[in-house]
């Protein structure tokens, strides 16, 4: 009889996504067999999504320290970086891939909600958001539907919440056809003496839940995120949550007002794994326990089971521990904002979580046993270099014949969905609320947002060219970090820290895990060089479908600081007659370029040329040139190569350019290649001598390649197009797909 029950329990554990060894571990921790409620708690908390069990050993290798770091990765809801003057920036990026694949509107909306709660539960008021999106083939109705839904979801949520979306990236490739990626980034500011902690301590202190009522939506969301997308995934629809941005706005105001009283011990939002996650993590951090009465949790449906209340992922909920005796003051704030709340229990000194239903204990677990860094399992996975890696390296530029008509290539590239204007998308986001977005009327490679309480601004960007990462995970990820830093430097900022969103396939596949390991190594190397520690982020495995894994996509969200607002730099050419210089060394390289991949259809090539030291040198020179006041514009060379960079600098003011190519390189490589560490700058003719003198002896190659002119794009004396034609191609591409029929 006993063995039968044992088998039955084990079966349930397996159905909940636990491994057999994990089941036995639970029995060992508890010293008895778990009940169903407890099993559900462990299954949610030990899911990949919450426990990082297959990634943590590698994540620990990333640099975490800098003198600016106030909260290190994993310690709090989000990273916290000192920007001086008594202010800090809290920022983080998170994925909402699986929900968005099934229900793009709510999936993306709740992703935005979740990341903002992480930021304001630190006591920080969000001031800017970014997003990084990846979809399949835009010519298919499926991708168009997903894109439409995701963009509307992000817009409707963020616009109503009232925090501007100031930038982002979108990339299309067939590998994302079934499994799109939706990564949302938020940054907020907080006075360093007003930072809230995600901690529970002090015996007898009351525990409050506030915000929306708890419903059956999002049950097993964390487990859902921890498996592959299949034909049956639509059956997981109940695992997708529904967002309410109005409630989020009220939560934001109520939370910040409560924190400002000084009576809040700790606060954490209810994200993946809901009540069990917040109670466990806050208790574990404070080496405390909690007694929680689940029947006091406001619910949407009657008769919700204890396990449902514990792991529901209903949105817009917060857990707060308040100083005993200060309940009235905090409740007054909740009432002011019409936010529903309930006192559901209190902190104990037992280190144990006890959950009650009508007075009876329904679950009892050591808090620490549930969490990452505590009892959650940690796995060393095996990895193996995939066969394609060496194959890709065999590519040589000589295998591709240079097309005769490069003008045609230029026109082709300007209307590639990966290169063309994303206006159709970003005009659906409120990018200006808060009146702090300095990039609206002054475009730059990264978004510049004023921290109004100070005389500084933050400079933020999200970057990852996953095609490079796929070709070479280590190089490709280093490039993602370098490009983010370059974007910040070209905008006048100083890179100071990163957050990452690691989107990969199934970690049990050794080749996928090899990509993950090498991505981490590349990130480590680059972050050390740029002195940008990793403040946290999120790992999203299982991004794969029957067609295979997505490109490894370690999205980098980088925070930079504009210490002096006079250093803000823009990317647009200002005036005909200005000189155009290329800073950095061109290469005979077309590897992994949009040109090679889309125009020639060659998928197998290595990552483009990149050398970390060369990159670093170029960035130092750009920084110095900006501060010396010698530049009129700066724009880094990235997707689409030099030609696209020049076009993007020319189009905002309807200007043109006349340039000469460089005989040392194949013309197609020079114009369309994506070798890294290059920046196009424009310089006033009166500054030419000063500029060239400044560049002498810097050890960084530079070359006068042409000048800004009116309306024409002229390459080697050949008129390629007029600026209005370029604008039509560049602006027209996305609407052509999205507004057809």
């Amino acid at each position, binding site marked *: 009889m006993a063995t039968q029950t044992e088998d039955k329990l084990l079966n349930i554990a397996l159905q909940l996504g636990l491994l057999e060894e994990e089941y036995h571990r639970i029995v060992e921790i508890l010293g008895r067999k778990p009940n169903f409620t407890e099993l559900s708690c462990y299954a949610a908390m030990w899911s990949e999504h919450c426990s990082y069990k297959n990634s943590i050993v590698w994540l620990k290798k990333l640099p975490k320290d800098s003198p600016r770091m106030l909260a290190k990765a994993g310690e709090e809801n989000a990273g916290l970086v000192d920007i001086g003057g008594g202010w800090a920036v809290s920022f983080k990026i998170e994925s909402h891939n699986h929900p968005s694949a099934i229900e793009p509107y709510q999936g993306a909306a709740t992703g935005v909600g979740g990341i903002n709660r992480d930021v304001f539960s630190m006591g920080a008021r969000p001031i800017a958001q970014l997003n990084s999106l990846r979809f399949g083939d835009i010519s298919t109705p499926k991708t168009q539907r997903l894109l439409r839904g995701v963009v*509307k979801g992000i*817009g*409707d949520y963020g*616009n*109503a*919440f*009232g925090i501007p979306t100031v930038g982002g990236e979108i990339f299309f490739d067939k590998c994302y056809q079934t499994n799109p990626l939706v990564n949302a980034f938020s940054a907020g500011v907080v006075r360093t003496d007003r930072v809230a902690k995600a901690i529970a301590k002090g015996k007898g202190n009351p525990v409050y839940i506030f915000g929306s009522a708890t419903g059956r939506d999002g049950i097993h969301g964390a487990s859902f995120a921890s498996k592959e997308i299949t034909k049956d995934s639509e059956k997981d629809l109940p695992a997708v949550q529904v967002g*309410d*941005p*109005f*409630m989020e*706005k*009220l939560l934001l105001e109520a939370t910040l007002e409560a924190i400002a009283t000084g009576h809040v011990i700790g606060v954490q939002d209810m994200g993946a794994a809901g009540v069990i996650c917040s109670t466990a993590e806050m208790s574990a951090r404070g080496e405390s326990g909690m007694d929680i009465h689940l029947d006091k949790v406001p619910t949407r449906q009657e008769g919700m089971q204890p396990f449902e209340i514990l792991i529901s992922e209903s949105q817009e909920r917060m857990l707060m521990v308040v100083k005993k005796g200060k309940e009235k003051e905090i409740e007054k704030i909740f009432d002011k*904002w*019409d936010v529903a709340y309930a006192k559901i229990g209190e902190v104990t000194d037992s280190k144990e979580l006890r959950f009650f239903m009508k007075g009876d204990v329904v679950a009892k677990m050591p808090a620490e046993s549930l969490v990452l860094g505590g009892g959650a399992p940690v796995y060393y996975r095996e990895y193996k270099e995939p066969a394609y890696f060496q194959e890709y390296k065999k590519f040589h530029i000589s295998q591709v014949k240079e097309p005769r008509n490069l003008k045609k290539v230029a026109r082709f590239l300007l209307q590639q969905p990966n290169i063309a204007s994303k206006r159709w998308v970003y*005009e*659906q*986001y*409120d*990018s*200006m*609320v*808060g*009146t702090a*977005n*300095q990039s*609206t*009327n*002054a475009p730059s490679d990264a978004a510049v947002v*004023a921290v*109004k309480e100070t005389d500084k601004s933050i400079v933020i960007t999200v970057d990852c060219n996953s095609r490079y990462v796929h070709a070479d995970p280590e190089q490709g990820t280093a490039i993602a970090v370098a490009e983010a830093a370059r974007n910040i430097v070209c905008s006048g900022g100083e890179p100071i820290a990163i957050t990452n969103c690691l989107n990969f396939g199934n970690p049990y596949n050794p080749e996928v895990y090899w990509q993950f390991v090498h991505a981490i190594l590349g990130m480590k190397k680059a972050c050390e060089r740029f002195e940008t520690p990793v403040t946290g982020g999120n790992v999203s495995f299982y991004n794969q479908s029957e067609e295979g894994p997505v490109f490894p996509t370690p999205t980098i969200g980088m925070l930079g600081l504009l210490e002096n*607002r006079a250093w803000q730099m823009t990317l647009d050419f200002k005036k005909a007659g200005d000189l155009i210089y290329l800073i950095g060394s061109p290469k005979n390289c077309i590897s992994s370029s949009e040109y090679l991949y889309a125009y020639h259809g060659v998928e197998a090539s290595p990552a483009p040329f990149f050398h970390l030291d060369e990159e670093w040198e170029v960035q130092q020179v750009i920084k110095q040139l900006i501060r010396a006041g010698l530049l009129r514009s700066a724009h880094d060379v990235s997707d689409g190569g030099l030609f696209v960079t020049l076009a993007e600098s020319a189009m905002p003011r309807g200007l043109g350019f006349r340039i000469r190519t460089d005989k040392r390189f194949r013309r197609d490589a020079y114009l369309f290649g994506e070798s890294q560490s290059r920046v196009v700058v424009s310089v006033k003719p009166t500054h030419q001598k000063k500029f060239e003198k400044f560049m002498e002896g810097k050890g960084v190659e530079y070359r006068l390649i042409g000048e800004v002119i009116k309306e024409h794009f002229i390459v080697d004396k050949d008129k390629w197009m007029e600026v209005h034609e370029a604008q039509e191609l560049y602006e027209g591409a996305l609407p052509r797909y999205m507004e057809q029929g």
Partner: protein
Amino acid sequence: MKFGVVVFPGSNCDEDMIYTLRHVMGQKVVKLWHKDTDLQGVDFVVLPGGFSYGDYLRAGAIARFSPIMQEVIRHAKRGGYVMGICNGFQILTESGLLEGALLRNLNQRYICKNVYIKPATQNTILTAGLSQKKAYKIPIAHGEGRFYAPKDMLKSIRDNDQILFQYCDAQGKVSEEANPNGSLLNIAGICNKERNVFGMMPHPERAADELLKNTDGRAFFESILEHVAV
């Protein structure tokens, strides 16, 4: 001059308006909480942008029933100044202080971008100080901004010189291409017959701070301050 900015739950341009009035224009400003019934002696009430009460029924439809709005309506009926921006404009039409309605944008999408508007009348404190020839670059950010009124109402709005602003191109030409949301007659803002209640979809408070490199919106506030008779 004392301004009062109403804060509804879901307002999200309230702080921007306060910042502009206080720090850019140097005016006295108080917040008016939606549950209050005291206007604190303000001369000029501003209903800011945002999503009051979540805009769940229809933009502005719930806000009109809030306690503070009953006072704002009395203030307006007494001849006091009221200006609604974006969601504030929607609340004014919902509460009957302004005519017409703001429907979903013609392209069915939310739109946030810089547009150009030009004054269509000089005969209000909001427009008296503006150049009648200049196209002002002011951002819009709304999903429901398409001004609509039945034929007779539209005629009366026009005949009574109630059109404050029209969408135009950078050169000041009022054209279909320059109309971002499908508003009738390119209407971006109107006033009431008594000329003390103003509504507009574009956000002048988003174009007032030099930091943002567009200060076209300042002229709107300067016009009010110059021409108001308190």
